[in-house]
């Protein structure tokens, strides 16, 4: 029997090669492999919070206020006697959902602006990029603070604020890639056979920037979790008694002298989650060979 080299087999062979190279890279970069496991673990904790938590995260117990960590309360209790371990576990749910939704908002707005400005150029490019400049000229989290304070504490303003905060990153990556890809042969060819503009944008250009988008989504996920905590810490984020990590640190900080565990564990949760997403983002960047922007 002759070896078949049909298109299907070729694709399969290419896939196998790709997987082998990914496996090889993962073996070499143990940190990336570990971060994939840890990110999965965080998602599992968020998903199964009710099963993992040992107590009701919002129910106080006035007989056990500011209790130190023990077998019953793994991370101790806070100033209202609530179980910190359960609050931290439920907090993963809050942070991951806000992070993911904010990421979707940022991607939708950012990629759209990037596609339009990059592909059409001219006036659209000028206006779009100036808008991005204005967004970028807000120092750090000031923009998110402004939006959150405008619409009051609550989930949706926070999601929108944090999403908007990622818009410049995504629109710049998309625009840069569109500019690079626009003049290449295959886009020219697609246009020549009469492909419509949306088809070119989505089928030919967007698929080519999948790598950078994936890498920056992972990194933005870390920074979204961090910004969520910042806003809640400042009192313009999620409203109490939601078990949000930043909020937990803020409400408990007056008691940290007597009971340091009240700020230790929620802060540690933020730190580890952000660290793990950043590790994964760095790993993916090396794996997919995305240039630093």
């Amino acid at each position, binding site marked *: 029997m002759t070896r078949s080299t049909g298109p299907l087999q070729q694709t399969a062979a290419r896939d196998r090669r790709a997987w082998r190279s990914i496996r090889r890279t993962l073996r070499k970069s143990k940190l990336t492999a570990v971060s994939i496991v840890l990110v999965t673990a965080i998602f599992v904790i968020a998903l199964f919070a009710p099963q993992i938590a040992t107590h009701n995260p919002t129910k106080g117990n006035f007989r056990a206020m500011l209790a130190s960590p023990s077998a019953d309360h793994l991370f101790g209790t806070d100033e209202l006697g609530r179980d910190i371990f359960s609050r931290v576990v439920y907090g993963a749910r809050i942070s991951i959902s806000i992070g993911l939704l904010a990421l979707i908002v940022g991607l939708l707005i950012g990629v759209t602006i990037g596609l339009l400005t990059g592909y059409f150029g001219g006036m659209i490019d000028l206006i779009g990029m*100036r*808008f991005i*400049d*204005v967004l970028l*000229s*807000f*120092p*750090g*989290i*000031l923009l998110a*603070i*402004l*939006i959150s*304070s*405008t*619409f*009051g504490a609550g989930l949706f303003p926070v999601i929108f604020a944090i999403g908007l905060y990622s818009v410049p990153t995504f629109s710049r990556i998309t625009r840069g890639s569109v500019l690079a890809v626009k003049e290449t042969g295959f886009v020219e060819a697609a246009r020549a056979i009469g492909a419509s503009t949306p088809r070119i944008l989505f089928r030919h250009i967007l698929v080519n920037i999948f790598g950078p988008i994936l890498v920056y989504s992972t990194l933005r996920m*870390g920074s979204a979790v*961090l910004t969520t*905590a*910042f806003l809640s*810490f*400042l*009192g*313009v984020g999620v409203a109490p008694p939601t078990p949000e990590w*930043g909020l937990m*640190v*803020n409400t408990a*900080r007056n008691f*940290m*002298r007597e009971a*340091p565990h009240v*700020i*230790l564990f929620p*802060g540690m949760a*933020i*730190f580890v989650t*952000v*660290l793990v997403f*950043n*590790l994964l983002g*760095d790993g993916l960047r090396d794996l997919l060979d995305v240039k*630093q922007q």
Partner: protein
Amino acid sequence: MISYLIRRILIGGFVALGVVTLVFFSLHLAPGDPISMLIPPETGGAATAIADQIRAKYGLDKPLFTQYVIYLGNLVRLDFGRSINTDRPVVTALAARYPATLELTIAGLIVALVIALPIGIVSAVRQNSLLDNVSRVFALAGISIPSFWLGLLLMLLFSLRLGWLPASGRGGPVWTWEGLQHIILPAVTLGAMASGILMRLTRSSMLEVLRADYLNTARAKGLPERTVIYAHALRNALIPVITVLGLQIGTLLGGTVVIETVFAWPGIGRYAIQGIMGKDFPVVQGSVLALAIGFIFVNIIVDVLYCAIDPRITYD
């Protein structure tokens, strides 16, 4: 050079106008009128008349666009309005607080550079050594750690437990002993925020430059390795670092909002948060603008600084 400077300032002005517009309209979209918050609801009919009077005083009864034009006109005359809660001019409060924020930002920047530059350089020169690996882990941790938490931990250790440093407030200007003691913890917290990114960038930029041919030329000339690295490589490696430094100053200015809240530092960031809590439009507008415009200004300076460092960059 001059024409570039003018163009750069014009663009900066345009962006500043955009910031003003965004801040103005986003705050006025906010539900909840500050005046109705000042007057208790149980006062009834008589209060409505008073409320209208107060609204008229602050121009809140006019159409939004008219308010916007009046606001722009006032800004040009450096009139940021009066605080609704204290009735004091915002510009005076800003002027009183700007030195504190500026001092904290600069101190934070110095801390960040003192940590990031030497470690980043050594990390690159001894790539993959133990020191390199340890410092890379530290850089990643610096990027990932929530600064308010780091600040609280430092405060817990050095103020509440050991009693070495004051926990909060500003002791006076930084050149006094009191002032210096008070600024250490907030500055270290703020500097740690920026040092991670700067360290990674110094390292990667230095690694790239170390492979350049002109370094071999310099070595071939018989220059000592020290001169090759610190005079030839470092100067070229610093160019991308300075670009990011401009952006990092923005992060630092934004970071002051959080750090000032943690350490009760009497700067603009804390003033902004107080304004947000009190629904005090002019205060929030004024402080956000002061920070954003400061940031735009810094970036113009950074752009111009390039030519001092890299004569190859021209402004055409």
